[in-house]
């Protein structure tokens, strides 16, 4: 945006954007303002920069330019509706709303409009069951596999026996924060550990009660499902009560630079789940630098951070889905329905990621009609406060699939019954 364009735009009277043909329209429902804005910004930048790079370097995907339409949701469901309605008729290919609330709302709407949703590591977990949720994809991981990954990591640390151990869950008191509870309860039964639940109300600026309780009860491990200011305060308070950071494991939304930097050196050793790698050591960043940062087309302010990487990863998965769909249909100008079919046979391999310039960035996996949830593998990353870097300390490991699959089947069956859906995939 420069002055000239602004002037030109001003000259053009108030009009609604018209659908431009022969380009791939990707709406980007993001939030750069509001209480969760600080986390939304790097994600939105990563998502936008990835597609901008494809446009600049390759001339789009398969010869079609990508038209990324950003729409500000401020993490607000009503604005989310507005954004969805404003973009759905423009030929939008895929929605990634980065909000569990908005995802729940869009599930029936997008299904009816035949547009896929890729809720990567958030949203409705049981949407992993492709037999019920035809248009929703949540690879490569979900909250239930995440909960199981936390417990698996603890099992590793404790040599496989956590009987009688105390594990506390500090969670955002909302739909998102409550997601892991059922899984953790099931796992608590299976492994006979003691689970204590500590809800924190939005926004979570004041958590003294919760942390005094933790200090009293001395749980052996803490896991956290937080977002926004809650993360910073929780990590700060954990440091204050001198809780050993390496026994404090956050979900992937509680493990970004934003969350640990305010606590300074005291956050050293804090762990979080990761569904992808992070950092600047990828050949892709050379291209990003040449084509975007150096030409001033993007600031690259957040490049290399966890949430920027996540935005980029989300962009990469969507782009790979589009490529798959283009190959499948044989035409470059695909529709949302084609992309849905493309996602269903999407295969992310090590070679593909290396070719893109992101070797080892995420797990390799395959999506199928039955399973929209991908591999459900998760790694653990740890914060190094001195060098200010996150690094993966485990490979991508699967969760406790028996428990997760059972829960997914139960929950999706309930949804199917409520909405009179019959199962797909033969």
């Amino acid at each position, binding site marked *: 945006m420069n002055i000239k364009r602004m002037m030109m735009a001003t000259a053009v009277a108030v009009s609604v954007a018209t659908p431009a043909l022969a380009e791939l329209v990707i709406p980007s429902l993001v939030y750069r*303002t509001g209480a969760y804005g600080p986390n939304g910004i790097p994600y939105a930048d990563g998502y936008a920069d990835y597609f901008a790079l494809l446009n600049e370097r390759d001339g789009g995907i398969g010869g079609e330019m990508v038209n990324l339409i950003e729409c500000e949701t401020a993490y607000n*469901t*009503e604005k989310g509706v507005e954004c969805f309605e404003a973009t759905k008729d423009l030929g939008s290919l895929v929605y990634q709303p980065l909000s*569990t609330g908005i995802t729940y709302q869009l599930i029936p709407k997008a299904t009816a409009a035949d547009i896929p949703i890729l809720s990567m590591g958030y949203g409705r977990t049981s949407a992993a069951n492709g037999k019920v949720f035809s248009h929703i994809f949540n690879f490569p991981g979900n909250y239930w596999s995440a909960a199981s990954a936390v417990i698996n990591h603890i099992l590793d640390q404790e040599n496989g026996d956590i009987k009688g151990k105390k594990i506390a869950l500090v969670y955002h008191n909302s739909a998102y924060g409550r997601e892991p509870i059922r899984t953790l309860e099931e796992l608590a039964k299976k492994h006979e550990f003691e689970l204590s639940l500590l809800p924190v109300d939005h926004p979570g600026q004041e958590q003294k009660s919760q942390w005094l309780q933790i200090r009293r009860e001395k749980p052996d491990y803490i896991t956290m499902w937080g977002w926004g200011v809650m993360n910073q305060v929780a990590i700060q308070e954990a440091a204050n009560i001198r809780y050993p950071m390496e026994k404090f494991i956050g979900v992937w939304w509680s493990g970004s630079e934003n969350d640990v930097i305010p606590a300074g050196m005291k956050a050293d050793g804090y762990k979080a789940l990761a569904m992808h790698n992070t950092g600047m050591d990828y050949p892709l960043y050379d291209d990003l630098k040449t084509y975007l940062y150096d030409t001033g087309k993007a600031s690259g302010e957040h490049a290399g951070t966890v949430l920027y990487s996540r935005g980029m990863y989300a962009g990469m998965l969507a782009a790979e889905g589009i490529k798959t769909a283009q190959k499948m249909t044989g035409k470059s100008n695909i529709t949302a329905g084609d992309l849905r079919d493309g996602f269903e046979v999407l295969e992310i391999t090590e070679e593909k990621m290396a070719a893109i310039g992101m070797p080892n960035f995420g797990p390799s996996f395959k999506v199928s009609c039955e399973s929209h949830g991908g591999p459900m593998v998760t790694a653990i990353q740890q914060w190094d406060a001195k060098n200010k870097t996150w690094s993966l300390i485990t490979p991508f490991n699967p969760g406790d699939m028996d428990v997760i699959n059972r829960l997914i089947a139960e929950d999706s069956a309930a949804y199917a019954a409520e909405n009179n859906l019959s199962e797909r995939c033969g």
Partner: protein
Amino acid sequence: MLYREAGDFKVSYQADQQTFPIRFDRLFFWALLASAYFVVPFFINDYWANAVLLPFLIYGVASIGLNILTGYCGQVSLGSGGFMAVGAYTCYKMMTAFPDLNLAFCILAGGVTTAIVGIMFGLPSLRIKGFYLAVVTLAAQFFLVWMFNKVPWFYNYSATGMISSPERTMFGYAITGPNATPAATYLFCLTFLVVLAFLGRNLTRGSVGRKWMAIRDMDIAAEIIGVNPLMAKITAFGVSSFYVGVAGAMIFSVYLGAVEVTEAFGIQKSFLLLFMIIIGGLGSILGSLVGAAFMVLMPVLLKNIMVNSFGWAIDIAAHFEFIIIGGLIVFFLIVEPHGLAQLWRIIKEKMRLWPFPH
């Protein structure tokens, strides 16, 4: 200029007491209503319905409700978000417990339940007054939201506590769920608004409304002339909560389709409704609607102008949106402190007298 009249001649009480005493207003109102019912449904699309008209109509209902309590009866309430949640969850429970029940009844049941809850929380208003009353309603707000979050029965023991509305039809048309057509949902909400606004207008003009206003203007004086403050305040809380509950039920079932109580019915919703009625004009049904229109439409309009037409970056546009809305609120206040409805009244007076200002 638009009003071609030559004086104020009334020959019957009926003519004197009608809602729109001026002929032009009356005609305009009927024309507006007719076009709302018979023209708009043919041109409406998903965007206009879901992003503009539904929120406007639903918030219109809610702000009429709050205006009855705050504008007419003088009791400040910051619990509207919580009361909306009561309506929404009642509606959800009814919809899932009785799948064959008509949606309209589910929504009305939401309103009735909310009225009862509202009356309960209204009782302390006999003793606590003014801004301090806000604490009672805030307690309601936070307690209700916490309760809906905590007790799994309310969300049918689902894993996350989100409630989603199943598809329900009326006269063969889907009103809720993804297959609802924009025209059907629009007409459904419009009917609720028209009926409730009509009711509200006549309630506030009748003896009940006069009692409310007496209490608002000075409760001790009202008590002396024989208004029972208990009854007046309780009815105001009841009626107001009914409206707010109906609006909450509609937000959940028709507009959003899936809600989470902390996000959709949090404290910011209570503030939003209060902003609507203050900006629109306290003690005015028209004001409630204008205020709702301002708070719902202005952000959408500004966003469309700045992002779609000027091509600004969305975050800059969002910041300017706040600046402009804040600036407009202050500007309108300085021009006319009693809200947009009063501004309209003044303009109307001017227009009736034009071109002779005296």
